[in-house]
């Protein structure tokens, strides 16, 4: 399977994306998926439009991207985490 490039972004790139990044890392490991994870600031997403397969972010934007965008807030609040994980896994397995 082709290695997916997954962008993990929050507004300042220091707090929330760190938590999300590690959650996805763990998930990929559990499912034996090889993922190219990039932890970035949301403002840097533009540089990855040609290469990324998925954006997981706590700073949802109204911008349109050529790849799916998944809201990662549940990783922080614990509400709906399983649903979010399922969404991410589905994208990774595509």
């Amino acid at each position: 399977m082709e290695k997916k490039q997954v962008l993990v972004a929050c507004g300042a790139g220091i707090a929330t994306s760190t938590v999300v990044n590690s959650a996805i890392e763990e998930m990929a490991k559990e499912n034996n998926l090889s993922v190219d994870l990039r932890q970035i600031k949301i403002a840097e997403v533009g540089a990855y439009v040609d290469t990324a397969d998925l954006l997981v972010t706590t700073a949802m934007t109204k911008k349109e991207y050529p790849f799916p965008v998944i809201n990662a807030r549940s990783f922080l609040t614990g509400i709906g985490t399983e649903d979010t994980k399922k969404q991410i896994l589905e994208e990774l397995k595509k």
Partner: protein
Amino acid sequence: MSDIYFDESIILLDLEGETKEEVLTAMGQNLTEKGLVKTTFTEAIIAREAEFATGLPTSGVSVAIPHTDVEHVNKKAISVAVLKDPVAFGVMGDPDETTPVKLVFMLAMDEAHSQLSLLQRLMHIFQDQETLTYLTSEKSNANVKAFLESKLDFTFKGGE
């Protein structure tokens, strides 16, 4: 991990404020006065909050984790405020929604991506209704400090 500044002087209980800007200003000014952050910090954190909201609805009281870029910080620190009355903060990831925030954890981080275990422990607190309820009702700074130290499970360096 061991050099995060956290003491009673940056725990603000019963903080009054009508708006999130007032709350962020009070907390930011306090950190500025202590020399923990640069004078640009408060403005930066307000701007950041306006652009990317950090309010988190939990199963109980809502929390917010305002933070901004590392260049505004002198010394990494966590300031905690319990608001006298809930104040509307934007919801993280949902720019059109607000949530009534009662607890604010202001994160002054001096290097990017360095605080994973601390952040994960914070997130555990957010997912623990009993803990949140306790924090909003405790009236002693010393107790809040001791409680969070044990919950966050690392050595803070601070006053005392």
